[in-house]
């Protein structure tokens, strides 16, 4: 065919890829982003669940107390204790547990049956607190004087470690999330440097034909941020599905990892958007730094 008969070149389709497709390295960076977002979402969900659990424990246990009246106490000890409790500021209600309730509490250890009848079991009073609760030390002294052997238990001795434990999980989750974010930023920066090195000739040509640094940086940053965001969206989505549907996922270490759908959806979006932002920022910094090193 002679040149005169040749058709015009295919019309410009509005898109000219400055860089060749990434191939396996691009797929691997997407996969790494997916894995990191998966871990980040699980970690963040664990942290949020731990924080929520700690708050729940705090609210539930700080609103109640238990009074134990010794098994061998005098017959009028119950009445004395209840009178003191009802007169103490900070106590909303005091209710002695009946025998059936106590039997139910002890059943896991003593079993069903008549054991409760034959054993010296202390009597329990369930106390509901209000406001900041009573002065625990003063109340304990008063009760001990009125009915020797009586103990006021505001659950502080085991509430503290539980809440501390929940807070420790929360802090670990935050730390792990920060590490995952840093690892993601490092991974993207490395990928950006590798991409620049692999396409050094293109960078050189584009600079020589008058390409702005911003233009060149954009060509590298966009696909990296896109791949990071895409991988993160899939990773976070997979983690959200796992939390929602995997049997037992909601009971890991006793934490409720499957929060309501809306917060989980928002968390998923936040992780994906955060990963895309991390990808964009770290790629931008890495590419600009590398371009600045060029003559």
């Amino acid at each position, binding site marked *: 065919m002679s040149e005169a008969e*040749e058709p015009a070149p*295919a019309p410009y389709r509005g898109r*000219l890829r*400055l*860089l060749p497709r990434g191939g396996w390295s691009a797929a691997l960076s997407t996969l790494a982003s997916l894995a990191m977002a998966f871990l980040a979402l699980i970690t963040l969900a664990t942290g949020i669940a731990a924080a929520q659990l700690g708050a729940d424990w705090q609210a539930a246990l700080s609103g109640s107390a238990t009074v134990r009246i010794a098994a061998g106490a005098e017959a009028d000890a119950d009445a004395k204790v209840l009178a003191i409790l009802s007169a103490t500021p900070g106590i909303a209600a005091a209710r002695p547990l009946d025998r059936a309730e106590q039997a139910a509490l002890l059943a896991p250890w003593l079993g069903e049956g008549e054991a409760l009848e034959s054993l010296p079991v202390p009597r329990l009073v369930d106390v509901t607190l209000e406001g900041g609760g009573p002065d625990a030390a003063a109340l304990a002294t008063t009760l001990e004087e009125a009915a020797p052997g009586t103990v006021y238990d505001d659950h502080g001795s085991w509430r503290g470690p539980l809440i501390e434990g929940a807070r420790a999980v929360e802090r670990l989750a935050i730390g792990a999330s920060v590490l995952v974010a840093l690892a993601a930023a490092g991974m993207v920066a490395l990928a950006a440097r590798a991409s620049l090195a692999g396409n050094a000739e293109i960078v050189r040509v584009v600079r*020589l*034909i*008058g390409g702005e640094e911003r233009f060149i940086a954009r060509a590298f940053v966009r696909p990296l941020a896109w791949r990071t965001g895409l991988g993160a969206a899939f990773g976070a989505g997979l983690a959200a599905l796992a939390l929602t549907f995997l049997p037992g996922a909601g009971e890991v270490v006793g934490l409720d990892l499957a929060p309501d759908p809306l917060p989980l959806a928002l968390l998923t979006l936040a992780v994906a958007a955060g990963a895309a932002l991390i990808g964009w920022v770290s790629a931008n910094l890495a590419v600009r730094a590398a371009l600045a090193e060029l003559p």
Partner: protein
Amino acid sequence: MISLSQVNFGYECRETLRDLDAEIAPGSFHFLTGPSGAGKSTLLKLLYLELRPKSGHVELFGEDPDTLRGPARLMLRRRIGIVFQDFRLLDHLNVADNVRLPLMVHGRDPAAHADDVTELLRWVGLLHRAEARPRALSAGEQQRAAIARAVITSPDVILADEPTGNVDAEMGMRILRLFVELNRLGKTVLIATHDLGLIRSARRMATTRILRLADGQLTVGGAEL
């Protein structure tokens, strides 16, 4: 348009260019010649701002690039079209997209210049290869694609480094005619070559001047070769 004043340049181990002085007027056609390793490519790199002189000044379009930063320096670069010895076409783009590349890089809309791309490809005889990838082209075709890419933005100056070094004599003449036509259109052309036959042919078609580079020194030649 282009002036060199006491320009010195050397790589780590040796001084390549010493005290170069030259003036290249707008619309002129110059050949830069000299033996291999004389520093022709280095001098071109100084002109298209890939290298900076160790001392002395290169002036482009009345501006000293060393005093310019950012966009102003970039604007100088954009007034120069470069034809590399090894073409440097982007392998993942077809010929048409390689030609469109400077338009995109300069922030122009390639779609608005579709006719220019078509005309330019026709002019360099590559319209029928517009959709081909560079590695599918012969050396001569790649060189012509590189020329089309260099001139699509209508630069004031065209610098070409051994543009016929990888092609046979017939293709060399065809490429030379493209440069002569560009010069007739008012473009300043500077071709680095050690092919004296090419220079002789050019002198039959256009008024040319010769810059001879040897032992780091530049001399301006006349009619003799």
